[in-house]
């Protein structure tokens, strides 16, 4: 009797939470041909889920209403090597997912697919966006249903995922710091090396100039 009640309550709660989380998402305005890009620096094998919702400004009612059916958004995702790993068009409301295979800066770009310039009517498109990274992208209702976990097990599973994510991020941080240290040391070395070489070149040029001019003047019988 208790498991049935708790299962349905949990499911209801999760559905509410997903919906609720989306309602409080950040929003911004985007122009007709404008492209807005966001950069996510993530370790490898990390899943990213993005949810967006668009609204168009209605001049008559002077407020933002849900956009018409024809209006969609292009979502383009580039990996750290500037290679496009996802390029798809979604409707006025959409949800995109991708998993990173190389660690680094991934770029997520959004732009509208509107070709009729009159559609925006001089206004802007309001885009509500929410991007979940790594452990936050997990759908715990699904995991609970698939593995038949009780609530306690589910929570412990969530803690384990959270710790895994932190650990992955830390490993990636170590790798980035090493690259940072290499760049710093290389710059330092080059500055030192260049100063020495510059001094030697100046001295050599000075000697060459003197010798060349001396032989020139001797040839011209001035010395």
């Amino acid at each position: 009797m208790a498991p049935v009640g708790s299962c349905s309550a949990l499911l209801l709660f999760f559905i509410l939470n997903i919906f609720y989380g989306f309602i409080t998402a950040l929003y911004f305005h985007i122009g007709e041909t404008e492209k807005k890009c966001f950069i996510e620096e993530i370790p490898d094998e990390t899943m990213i889920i993005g949810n967006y919702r668009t609204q168009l400004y209605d001049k008559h009612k002077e407020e933002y209403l849900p956009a018409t059916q024809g209006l969609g958004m292009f979502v383009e995702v580039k990996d750290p090597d500037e290679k496009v790993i996802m390029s798809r068009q979604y409707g006025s409301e959409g949800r995109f997912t991708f998993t990173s295979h190389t660690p680094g800066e991934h770029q997520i770009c959004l732009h509208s697919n509107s070709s009729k310039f009159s559609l925006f009517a001089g206004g802007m498109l309001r885009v509500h966006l929410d991007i979940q990274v790594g452990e936050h992208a997990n759908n715990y209702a699904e995991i609970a249903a698939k593995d038949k976990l009780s609530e306690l097990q589910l929570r412990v599973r969530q803690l384990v995922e959270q710790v895994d994510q932190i650990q992955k991020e830390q490993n990636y941080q170590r790798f980035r710091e090493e690259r940072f240290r290499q760049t710093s040391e290389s710059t330092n070395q080059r500055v030192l090396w260049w100063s020495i070489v510059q001094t030697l070149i100046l001295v050599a040029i000075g000697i060459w100039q003197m010798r060349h001019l001396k032989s020139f003047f001797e040839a011209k019988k001035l010395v």
Partner: protein
Amino acid sequence: MATVRLLTYVVSVLLVVVFERFSALAAFSQSLDSDFTFTLPAGRKECFYQTMKKDASLEIEYQVLDGAGLDVDFYISSPAGQILYSDHHKSDGMHTVETEDGDYMFCFDNTFSSVSEKLVFFELILDNMDGDDEPEDWKEYVHGTDVLDMKLEDIMDTINSVKSRLGKSSQIQTMLRAFEARDRNLQESNYDRVNFWSLVNLAVMMLVSGVQVYLVRSLFEDKRKICT
């Protein structure tokens, strides 16, 4: 007798449902946060909006990760249009706002720079968005004197506290990542600059020495021609 049993059954299911709902709410939706990194082109201003409830709190933390002077103008304004905080040419900042109902707008302004684009990272931490739901109230509904129930309560409390601490660790990690990214970008631009200007220096030195020798020679050659 049967109705009493049925009633007890219904009440206990209701209690479990309510208990689960509030405790789940307490654990999973206490604090919402999101972070974004974006490129702010030169001479542009980008604004973001966040819908807030009354008596919640909004904490915004931003950093400039890349781009010439590593600075940007920032301001945050209330739903009524009043500017709450305003930063001028800062490279990082953090502000907390006790919110009212409405849409808060915060903007990053790069109009003072006409050539360099900035890479800006910001993090929004929202607290108490459930508003009136008091997460501690569910304790009133739990009537169990069973030892197992109390142990479960302790376990739930421990799990909640671990979760919130891990959340905090995660936030600190994000912040450190932003600092490291900024320093690394700075160092890489130093590296590029050292390389470029060293080569320019070498080229200029060669050029100048050649020009000097040529000019001195040409002085004497002209005189020769005049003498004859």
